[in-house]
């Protein structure tokens, strides 16, 4: 044991004196530090652009109105009025009706023109800026739609208007009134009423979503991105609840029976979603940008780290053989398997140190560029209650889990290095392996969801999404988007993947043992 430690210390000294290692470390730090700033820059420039165009502002609408006005001229010249009488349930109702003399293709422009005029005359653009406000945008759309529907009804000649027409007319005006309230007075209940009336989704899902939204944001202040996250969360919450109630699971668009582990996962997801909804800690526009910056920063840093480690692992035996420095290890009173173990340990130490370094750098850079408070914690369920852990801690654990997959790649590089005793070949092959890690997703695309694809090594290396099944709920990109290993996640349980990888490690070690320990050193 002390011999292994002595060898390990020597390995660490050797690595720390390698220039190429430090160049990659510096590159890694610089890259991972600069990414959040790049994300911020990209964001600022895109914000500026949308402000320039002044979408949804008063001048914008004036411009739009003028365009339509040029087409149609004075809207009043298409209008004719008359008082009509309808008998509804033995009562006579009098209606001051409007008849529009328009071609089919003019209706849209006409209704828009009227809406623009009404907006420009009555809408308070300063109090309720439309740009980036969810409620305003949605209500605006409803208002335009309702007005268009009404115009359609008003195309009907006076003579052909019967009581059925009248009913349609009444409900159209009702909706128009509601949408006017929703739009001009920023009134949530009116908007909610429209959604309730028009919702024809199963289980009134849309109504549920908007109702929840109005509870969380009664004054309608949310921007559309944040509202989108809430809608998405409620949709997941409702879908999961429904799946649980029905005992089915929706995988890739088809229904399958719910497994026990999946049931637990759904239940926990519901708990987390509920917690996030009630505590207002869902992903927001701000946090999602921060998470994006952070994860791209990690991804870039990690990519360089992996390249560095593959070079170290792929050259660790072969380079020493090439330079002959292996001699002082062979002559020393240490068994060869200890040399081998110490080398692997030292590589894993660098993997660990690198992971910690990247976590620190990306947290720091993201914090500075996009605000420390915008980094969202990871939510998980323990003992039936929702817990959270700080994002840096989660990132670290995430890396540790991912290092298990990384270990396989490094061991492969190491084994090839022992076997071929050629640095070029072993680094080349192992880099290739890392880069083609996504082969399982390609295979899935080619052959469809086949059982044998699940049993390929690559398909079992996405441990992260098996160990942390809820990280998407906390606003993290999934492993595929984050550019980490394993890429696709197979449906086999974690324990299977772990066993599978353990056997893989054993086989690789056996080959490396034969290549380095048993064979002669030239």
């Amino acid at each position, binding site marked *: 044991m002390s*011999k292994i430690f*002595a*060898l390990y*210390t*020597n390995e660490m*000294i*050797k690595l720390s*004196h*390698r*220039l190429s290692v430090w160049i990659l470390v510096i590159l890694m730090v610089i890259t991972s530090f600069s990414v959040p700033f790049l994300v911020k820059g990209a964001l600022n420039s895109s914000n500026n652009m949308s402000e320039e165009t002044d979408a949804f502002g008063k001048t914008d609408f004036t411009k739009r109105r003028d365009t339509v006005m040029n087409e149609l001229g004075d809207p009043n010249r298409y209008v004719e009025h008359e008082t009509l009488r309808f008998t509804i349930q033995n009562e006579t109702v009098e209606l001051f009706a409007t008849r529009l003399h328009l071609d089919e293709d003019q209706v849209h422009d006409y209704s828009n023109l009227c809406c623009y005029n009404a907006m420009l005359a009555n809408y308070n653009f300063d109090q309720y800026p439309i740009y980036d406000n969810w409620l305003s945008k949605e209500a605006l759309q409803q208002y335009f739609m309702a007005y268009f529907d009404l115009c359609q009804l008003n195309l009907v000649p006076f003579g052909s208007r019967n009581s059925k027409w009248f009913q349609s007319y009444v409900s159209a005006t009702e909706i128009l009134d509601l949408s006017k309230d929703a739009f001009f007075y920023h009134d949530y209940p009116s908007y909610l009423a429209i959604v309730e009336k028009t919702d024809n989704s199963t289980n009134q899902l849309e109504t549920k979503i908007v109702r929840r939204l109005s509870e969380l944001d009664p004054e309608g202040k949310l921007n559309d991105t944040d509202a989108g996250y809430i809608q998405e969360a409620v949709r997941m919450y409702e879908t999961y609840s429904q799946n649980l109630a029905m005992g089915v699971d929706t995988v890739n668009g088809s229904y399958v029976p719910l497994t026990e582990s999946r049931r637990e996962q759904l239940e926990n997801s519901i708990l987390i979603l509920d917690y996030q909804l009630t505590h207002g800690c869902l992903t927001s526009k701000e946090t999602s940008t921060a998470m994006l910056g952070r994860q791209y920063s990690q991804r870039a840093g990690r990519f360089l780290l992996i390249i560095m480690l593959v070079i170290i692992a792929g050259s660790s035996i072969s380079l020493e053989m090439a*330079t*002959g*420095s292996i*001699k*002082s290890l*062979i*002559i*020393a*009173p*240490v*068994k060869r398997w200890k040399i081998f173990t110490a080398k692997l340990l030292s590589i894993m130490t660098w993997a660990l140190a690198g992971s910690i370094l990247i976590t620190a750098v990306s947290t720091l850079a993201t914090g500075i560029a996009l605000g420390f408070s915008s980094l969202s914690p990871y939510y998980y369920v323990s003992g039936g209650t929702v817990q959270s852990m700080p994002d840096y801690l989660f990132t670290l654990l995430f890396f540790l889990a991912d290092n298990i997959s990384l270990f396989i790649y490094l061991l492969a590089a190491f084994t090839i290095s022992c076997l071929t005793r050629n640095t070029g070949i072993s680094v080349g092959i192992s880099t290739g392996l890392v880069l083609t890690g996504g082969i399982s997703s390609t295979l899935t695309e080619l052959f469809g969801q086949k059982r044998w694809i699940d049993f390929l090594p690559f398909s079992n290396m996405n441990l992260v999404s098996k160990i942390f099944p809820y990280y998407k709920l906390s606003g993290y990109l999934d492993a595929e988007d984050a550019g980490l290993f394993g890429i696709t996640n197979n449906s086999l349980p974690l324990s299977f993947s772990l066993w599978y990888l353990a056997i893989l490690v054993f086989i690789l070690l056996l080959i490396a043992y034969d290549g380095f320990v*048993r064979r*002669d*050193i*030239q």
Partner: protein
Amino acid sequence: MAESAVKPALQIQKVTKTFGRKTAVDNVSFDLYPGEVFGFLGPNGAGKTTIIKMVMGFFRPNEGTIIINGYNRKTDYEAAMSSIGGIVENPEMYNSLSARLNLKMYARLHKGVTEERINEVLELVGLLDRADDPIKKYSLGMKQRIGLAQAMLHRPKVLILDEPTNGLDPAGIHLLRDILKKLAHEEGVAVMVSSHLLSEMQLMCDRIGIINHGKLLRICSIEDLMHQAENSSVYRIKTSNPSKAKEVLSEKYPNRISNVEADTLDIEIEESQINECVRTLVSSGSDILGVQKLESSLEDVFLEITGGGTKIE
């Protein structure tokens, strides 16, 4: 020196090593005793490095046992290897690290090597001033010296050096000789040095093992070898028809005739046999133009033992 009462420091017993179909070392056995400098002599490709690599743990012997300081290398690897030090072929270390760091790292793998000991060996090989330079800035001879320093760092009981004079200047060779003699004769280290230069061996070795084509041909003391050289009994007979003379003589003295030239042939016989030999030739009708005793050097003895060929198999 090599009394049987003393326990050998290194025992090589019936060791064989093959590479594919080629047998590089063929059933070699010998012992190395504390306090002696043993010279391992043989032409290129004889198998010297192969034997050394087997002792040092690079190669596994196909057959045979290697015992170092009483420990079987196979079953007691670390105990056996801790009493051995050496250089195999060229000394190669971590080029970008300083000599001192190289030694420190090597010391970490052994028990009881102190900082003072490192300075001591650096001083001994004359590199103390350059100890903090990276190895890549060293000349070949300096590398050879630092290799020696590393080999003796942990005071091994057995010191094995493969062609250590390669690259050394005369002063360096002198120093090496002194160091090796001192280690052997004063500290009781068993030293084994390989070389293909007999003159070098002559100056520092007590015993010599001669090897060729993987076979250990002879083990003897340097004095024996010199004695043999002095008592050489090769006679060059000048005759007009050497091939006929060879025919006649080989009946009586089989396998003694060598070097048949245009008008001479060499024959290895005792001084007392000369008369009879000449008489045989004369009676068979050959003419004898002269008989000359050949002076023999150590080189000749060596060539004679190894077969003298220049062809490497």
